[in-house]
């Protein structure tokens, strides 16, 4: 092997070792484990979808000890979950700027398993996009896709750049193949919300919807690309949609300027940024187009 390669190989191993000082294994139930990163003192960030339940969790720390952890909160929309573990007295990693990455850059995904200790995967950035919205309203900025086959045990691990700075959390979500790095800004935003409120606030209009195929006659009469929409089957009494005059049986064609092809589109439009905004809804009622203005409120969380 040439000098350059040996140097690269050593650098990768050294980076892995450095990063591993901040990673833990997350044990949930009997089925395998995933990884997590000590993001702040006593606070671990991991991938939400890998947590099967919200029972108690256990973490394997770098010194091989096992410590219990409790769930602070979870947000399926961004695939992040925050755990509190007072015993994880570990240094917080150096964070880097994900915006500095471009296609072709090298990154490492570093995780941990109880049996083997640190685990590493080499990931080349396959593409980056300044911002991308996903199901449920998650906005990933930047959206960084990694060319890596992520083992399930490494899900939730740290994504580090060539400077050994953590730029995100690795997850297979939000990409059809490979993995993505949930960027540090997103993790911090979600962590702040989960630590202060226990959940990420969502927008709410008070509508129960189902997807429907639009009949031929309707498609012909309106200017629209999509062939499906959402039908209103439930309107929360005194909710924002009710106040705006939406009725059961109305077909919802678009919300806030975006075509609604199925209820998930409405869900996506109602992320935390939608709270307090006024959204225009294009409806079809009895075959006639109508428009209403809906004031989005914060989704009630059962208090009171």
């Amino acid at each position, binding site marked *: 092997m040439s000098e350059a390669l040996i140097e690269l190989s050593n650098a990768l191993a050294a980076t892995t070792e450095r990063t591993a000082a901040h990673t833990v294994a997350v044990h949930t139930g009997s089925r395998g484990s995933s990884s997590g990163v000590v993001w702040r003192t006593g606070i671990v960030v991991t991938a939400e979808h890998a947590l099967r339940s919200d029972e108690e969790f256990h973490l394997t720390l770098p010194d091989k000890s096992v410590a219990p952890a409790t769930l602070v909160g979870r947000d399926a929309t961004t695939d992040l979950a925050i755990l509190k573990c007072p015993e994880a007295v570990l240094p917080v990693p150096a964070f880097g700027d994900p915006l500095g990455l471009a296609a072709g850059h090298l990154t490492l995904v570093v995780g941990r398993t109880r049996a083997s200790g640190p685990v590493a995967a080499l990931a080349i950035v396959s593409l980056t996009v300044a911002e991308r919205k996903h199901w449920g309203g998650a906005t990933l900025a930047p959206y960084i896709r990694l060319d890596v086959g992520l083992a399930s045990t490494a899900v939730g691990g740290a994504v580090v750049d060539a400077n050994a700075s953590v730029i995100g959390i690795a997850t297979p979500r939000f990409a059809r193949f490979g993995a993505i790095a949930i960027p540090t800004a997103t993790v911090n935003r979600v962590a702040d919300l989960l630590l202060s409120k226990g959940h990420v606030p969502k927008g709410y209009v008070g*509508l129960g919807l189902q997807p429907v195929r639009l009949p031929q006659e309707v498609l012909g009469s309106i200017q629209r690309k999509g062939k499906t929409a959402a039908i209103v089957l439930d309107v929360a009494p005194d909710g924002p949609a009710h106040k705006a005059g939406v009725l059961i049986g109305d077909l919802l064609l678009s919300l806030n300027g975006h075509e609604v092809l199925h209820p998930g589109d409405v869900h996506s439009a109602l992320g935390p940024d939608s709270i307090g905004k006024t959204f225009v809804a294009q409806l079809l009622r009895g075959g006639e187009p109508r428009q209403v203005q809906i004031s989005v409120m914060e989704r009630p969380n059962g208090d009171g």
Partner: protein
Amino acid sequence: MLKIIIVAESVLARKEIEQLVRGPGIEIAASTASLSALDAVLATPDSVDLIIGTAEPAHLDDLLESLMENLAEFDSSRAVPVVLLVELENPRITARALRMGAHAVLPSNLPRARLLAALEAVSHDLVVTTPEETGSILAASPFGAAASGVEELVEALTARERQVLGMLALGLANKEIASRLSLSEHTVKFHVAAILGKLGAASRTEAVAIGIRQGLILL
């Protein structure tokens, strides 16, 4: 001697059940409109063998759910069996009640001897139905076949289950949900399990996705 508690909202209905069961072999420990008043009785082990409840057909689900919820609050090693008395036997109602955990759904005109036999069986943790019902129940499926284009829904969630599902949509943990609804975590787990079962979901996230698609979660 079977110790029973009678639960029914209407005074008349309670009196009717009292008349029906009163006699040798049965001790009526309490007759009430709601179980929540009976914390002390229920917390004492062996103080009650079973609960008999009745309601109007439209309110049977709610009655059963509130009974099951109240009972789930007690971390008893043996759950207190619940028997529903109904005016009109209906396979759909019976099937739903049994799935929700009732031990028996019996017609209110059952002769006393058969009723006692049924209650005795229930107190031994057996499930009792009348044979006429059993065939219909087991033949009918909650996911009814589409007939002539009139489609059946997934099995309906109760009001409490929809409320819990809405909170799952916020990503709240069981403990959070429990404190906001003033229930025990144990009860919340019971509701979450029922929701996953009814929606055919393998996880909370999947249940939320299905709930949104079905219009069960208000957005």
